[in-house]
């Protein structure tokens, strides 16, 4: 564990001991720990997702153990880093399942790694909760892999719902060749249903250092709103640089404080359909947000909440099915609906997530600060 990680770990510990003291009457868990494996992209391109997820997992582990663990037995989170690489994710999964003999596997952070790891967990019937939305068709056959983030179809729907709410019928899209491609594939068929005309769709390669020309092509089509679907801050800056004044709507993948810093002055007048706005959380999210702020003195967002939910879902399934239940029984126990911090899930749904469109909240970046707009999609 490098210096910076140890430092962060120490502050988290200090915060939590204070919390533990104030906990209710339950005695802290004791006895032989139950091993839960987790894979996140703590380094490489996906680190923007992996590091918040890891913080969420550690926080959840402390919270579950403080409240008595699983019928008295504490859980032990074993977190591995796949460096945003599917090959590494696969060998880490093998190590966790066959080496550490974990009862369940949480993560990984990126879709590619999830599909790779899903092959192993599905073959060995190990319950898995992925921090990604369901992706390619092959994942639909994996009955024991749940997803705590919405499928890209739902993200695309949320973008269109917001565009409809501001009466934007002509929309331009600027997206990257990775995450952008995936959301775009769902957005195209849905756009007609919402009466939205995609007047310009421009793509740029991952790691692009300049997308001004693509942004200019979008501007030339005079759209009423611009969707930006990317995992980098460059397109947001270029859109502002060439003075596109229409409202910009970003996909959930770009919603993190890291992007806001990298956008600089461009982080303004950008609407984002997401789930957690730390500055102004929904009532049922308040407890989690305060706990997180106390532990890490920074504001949590979607990925911290998703990891927190995943840990609690596995804990509740273990409570129901028993700590040493067989994989199949644990998988069944996991299938039940669960109202989490991020959203209300129903893992028996065919997209293994069951998040309703109504769970989305719509934040707006104003001068680099997240604010929660009152707009919600009525079911």
């Amino acid at each position, binding site marked *: 564990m490098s210096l910076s990680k140890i430092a962060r770990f120490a502050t988290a510990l200090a915060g939590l001991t204070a919390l533990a003291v104030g906990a209710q009457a339950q005695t802290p868990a004791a006895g032989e720990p139950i091993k839960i494996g987790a894979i996140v992209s703590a380094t490489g391109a996906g680190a923007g997702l992996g590091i918040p997820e890891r913080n969420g997992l550690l926080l959840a582990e402390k919270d579950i153990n403080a409240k008595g663990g699983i019928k008295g037995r504490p859980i032990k989170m074993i977190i591995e880093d796949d460096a945003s690489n599917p*090959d590494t994710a696969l060998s880490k999964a*093998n190590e966790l399942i066959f080496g550490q003999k974990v009862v369940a596997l949480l993560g990984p952070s990126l879709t590619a790694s999830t599909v790779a790891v899903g092959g192993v967990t599905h073959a060995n019937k190990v319950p898995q909760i992925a921090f990604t939305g369901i992706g390619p068709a092959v994942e639909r*056959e994996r009955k024991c892999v749940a997803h705590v983030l919405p499928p890209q179809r739902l993200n695309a729907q949320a973008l269109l719902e917001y565009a409809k709410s501001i009466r934007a019928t002509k929309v331009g899209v600027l997206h990257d060749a990775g995450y952008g491609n995936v959301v775009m594939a769902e957005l195209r068929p849905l756009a007609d249903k919402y009466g939205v005309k995609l007047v310009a769709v421009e793509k740029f390669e991952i790691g692009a250092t300049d997308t001004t020309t693509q942004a200019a092509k979008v501007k030339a089509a005079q759209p009423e709103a611009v969707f930006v679907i990317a995992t980098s801050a460059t397109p947001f800056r270029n859109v502002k640089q060439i003075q596109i004044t229409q409202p910009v709507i970003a996909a959930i993948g770009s919603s993190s404080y890291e992007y806001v810093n990298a956008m600089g002055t461009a982080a303004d007048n950008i609407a984002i359909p997401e789930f957690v706005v730390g500055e102004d959380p929904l009532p049922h999210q308040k407890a989690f947000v305060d706990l997180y702020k106390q532990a890490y003195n920074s504001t949590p967002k979607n990925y911290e909440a998703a990891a927190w939910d995943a840990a609690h879902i596995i804990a509740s399934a273990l409570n129901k099915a028993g700590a040493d239940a067989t994989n199949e029984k644990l998988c069944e126990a996991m299938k039940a609906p669960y109202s989490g911090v991020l959203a209300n899930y129903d893992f028996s749904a065919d997209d293994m997530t069951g998040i309703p469109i109504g769970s989305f909240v719509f934040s707006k970046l104003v001068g680099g600060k997240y604010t929660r707009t009152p707009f919600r999609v009525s079911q």
Partner: protein
Amino acid sequence: MASLNLQRNLLWIAVALAVWAALPFLVPRNIADLLVFTGIYTIAGLGIGLLLGHCGIVNLAQATFYGLGAYASAYCTVMMGWPSITGFLVGAVISMALAYVIGRPILRLTGYFLALGTLALSAIASALFFEWDWLTGGTLGIGGIPKLDLLGFVLDRPSRYYFFVWIVAFACMWAAHNLVDSRSGLMLRAMRDSSTAAAALSVDLQSLRTRVFVVCALFGSLAGSLFAHHVSFVSTQSFTVDRSITFLLIPVIGGATSIPGIVVGALFITFLPELLSKLGDVHQILFGLALVAVVVLMPDGLMGAWDRFRARLVARGGSDA
């Protein structure tokens, strides 16, 4: 005297084979997993070793053929439902054809221009792998590639796949060894020492280089198909320009002109990051420094340094060698 040497060599080989055969059952599963990757990287590295060691060509496009092999296996088995062997064949044919068509013009370049030409080829292929997501699945990639089954014997556990991959690797090493000792190998070494003199003796430099480039692509595609069936998933992240750079390091670190050196290079590439990753984020720095150390201190790779070390040993040891 000679027979004693021969016996000692046979003994060495027997010991090595015994260790090789027992290894997958002794080590934990993830080490066996890495040993399979070492086999796959050996095959890919052999092709580059031939080009670098024998033609002096820096080939930075191996990830492209590795990707073609992997995508062919994925597409044939998952999308078309054909038996796995078709993936290997389709991948090999496409890679060799592309290597021939692209190789002929690019191989007219020399030195740095050629290195950059292969780098550009790798960048183009990487962009196209992203772009043609109807074929490659783009960022999501193609999942659910079935485990390889040889006439009904399914190779699902790493220990089983380990034997298959390494047998293929040994076969490729045997083929590469044959090539080096054959008439083509003779002409290759001549070309390496003096291309003007080789030309004067009617050695067709251009077609020789192209044919070795095609063989390199074949090895890359084979390794790609084996990778696809091992990971049962392929996505663009595995076939980028930095993967080509990693492949180039295999013969560089191992020793470009020695075939066992390629295995040493592959072991270095697979296990060093694993060993160093225990030290946290600093491991990437150490990997870079290890590479610099090898390039500066051992110009002819680890194998070269080992041979020189043994030679010094023998020299000092006098007649008992």
